[in-house]
């Protein structure tokens, strides 16, 4: 790993081959330290890129806002018709139930699909200017976060319209959102890196996201899945595996508990459950940062 150290306006770049084995740990520590300082210096670029995305989306402001709000509303309407009229499922206040899952999912899916291409799409810049490449996928996630927050107003409007109580547990919402942002950033960093080397990642992920959507309890409650499933001698705890393997399922379950409860207002989430989700999200995030950090030095020649 090349050592890049910045002291004031001086930058020292030392090729890996120049470092002896004993020097390495110290150098890596110094490199990581300068790297964090540099990320901090470029925070304005991140903000500018987020503003760019939002401006472009809301340039035609009426249409932009309508689309951010209208798309989840339409999907909600479709699910409501299917699951209350065509195959009644006896879920209390189904539109709210479905929005609690749909909005976080849309945020996740738009961020992932958008960030996969973010590095490759900016190839001309990457070949010409240095800046921390992390800002590209991260800005996509953050601008989608803003859209998510705007769309959340619809959810609250529905909660009020259905005369459902908003309980104090709703104050946990920011924490849940932050955990989701951390998880999403991790996934975004990993996939953006993979896409630089294997350009069909994007196509594969579009299909994968559709599968992921159906495998996540968004328009159905987890209760409809069997608790346990017998595979020969093996007994699989389906719920447990779902939550363990799919952080989005855990996150959506938490959103649902604190905002919807069982249709009668938010309820307290299980803390150990949410704690595990947080740890998973942080783990994915750190993995994403490491993978990105390891491979971004090759972006300049690969894109």
């Amino acid at each position: 790993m090349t050592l890049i150290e910045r002291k004031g306006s001086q930058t020292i770049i030392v090729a890996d081959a120049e470092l002896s084995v004993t020097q390495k740990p110290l150098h890596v520590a110094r490199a990581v330290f300068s790297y964090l300082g540099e990320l901090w210096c470029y925070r304005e670029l991140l903000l500018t890129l987020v503003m760019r995305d939002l401006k472009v989306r809301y340039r035609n402001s009426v249409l932009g806002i309508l689309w951010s709000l209208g798309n989840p509303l339409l999907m909600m309407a479709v699910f409501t018709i299917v699951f209350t009229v065509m195959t009644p499922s006896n879920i209390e206040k189904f539109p709210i139930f479905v929005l609690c899952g749909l909005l976080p999912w849309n945020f996740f899916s738009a961020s992932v699909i958008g960030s996969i291409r973010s590095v490759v799409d900016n190839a001309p810049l990457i070949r010409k200017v240095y800046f921390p490449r992390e800002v590209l996928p991260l800005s996509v996630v953050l601008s989608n976060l803003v859209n998510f927050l705007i769309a959340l107003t619809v959810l609250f409007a529905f909660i009020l319209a259905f005369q459902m109580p908003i309980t104090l547990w709703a104050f946990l919402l920011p924490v849940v959102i932050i955990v989701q942002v951390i998880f999403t950033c991790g996934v975004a960093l990993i996939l953006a890196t993979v896409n630089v080397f294997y350009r069909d990642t994007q196509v594969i992920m579009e299909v994968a996201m559709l599968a992921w959507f159906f495998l996540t309890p968004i328009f159905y409650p987890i209760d409809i899945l069997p608790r346990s499933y017998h595979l020969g001698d093996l007994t699989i705890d389906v719920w447990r595996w779902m939550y363990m393997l799919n952080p989005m399922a855990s996150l959506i379950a938490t959103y649902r508990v604190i905002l919807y409860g069982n249709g009668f207002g938010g309820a307290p989430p299980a803390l150990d459950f949410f704690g595990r989700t947080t740890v998973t999200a942080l783990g994915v995030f750190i993995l994403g940062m490491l993978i990105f950090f390891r491979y971004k030095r090759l972006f300049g020649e690969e894109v």
Partner: protein
Amino acid sequence: MSTAIQFEHVSRRFVLHHHRARSFQELVIRMLQGQGNGRREVFWALSDVSFEVKKGEMVALVGANGAGKSTVLKLISRIIDPTSGRIIVNGRVGALLELGTGFHPDLTGRENIYLNGAILGLRRDEITRRLDDIIAFAEMERFIDVPVKHYSSGMYVRLGFSVAVHVEPEILLVDEVLAVGDAAFQRRCLERIDQMRANGTTIVFVSHDLNAVRRLCQRAIWLEKGCIVADGSPEAVVGEYATQSYAASAALAARRELCRHGTGEVTIEEVRFLDGEGRLRDFFSTGESFTIEMRYRAHKVIERPVFGIAIHRSDGVHVTGPNTQFAQYEIPMVRGEGVVRYTVPFLPLLEGTYYVSVSSHDRDSICMYDYHDRLYPFCVLSGAEERYGLVTLRGVWSWKEE
């Protein structure tokens, strides 16, 4: 700290994977067919390059295509990492971007200035402070709040350049971006670069325009296949480089067949340029002795043939078109091989690149034996004090008070 850039034994290797899978689809197919990743080839784009650039110096990098010039700039700006060696850079690095790289078509000029400024590492308030200057330099007052997708490409270039030069980097990297844009724009760019140099900006300049290199830079480094061949005054380095590179130019050889026509009784086999001492050169200064030498072969006996030349400047201006007939220089008869020379004791051309055409035809200009259309370029460097226009007339000034 008087050093701006220091390279210490820097090498850079590229691994060329000739058949590396670039998608999962390919990867799976490879695996099913049981093929590995195919042939790998290691290519050294730079090997053991050391040099130092002082603060405020303007250095040119010259060299053939693929010599490693852009690689050096990419290493300085941290776009790629060195394979071995050490690089020290003192000061903020800025690069001139081509054609508004990084502009978003749906945003207005003003918004793009902020975007581009942020990409180049400026804070918002720093951009706000420079905003008026940027707009004024680009001469874009009227269009600044229009989305850039409605700009002409010239406006795009102007705005991008204007942002880049107002970032006020301490080290400016210029990689052939001046080749785009019209002549007026190029002049403005060069003026601005000159001004930045006067203000103490360190500049590394990559260009195939050797005249610009000679005029602007204090030092030139010649790279060849990733190694430094020469490092010194632009006069010496550029002269040496130009003489060498042109002789080996493969592109020219390819053109050679295309731009030839004629019946072939007398073919021109070789054209060379010689200086006053009879040495081969492609690079002359205004005022030097200049000779064009044509080596011909007559395939049968031809009486009273006419040899001619034409000189065009690179922008197509026809400078002159002498021939032996106009000069009333009669060649009674040719057979076999021979040489025709045209000597100009004092070359009046001012700096630029010129192309020589040569021809051999019969007395009545009916039958063209051989004609090479603008196949032979040579460069003139500004040896004279005069610098505007095409030629020096060697006129004499006088003054008298009455």
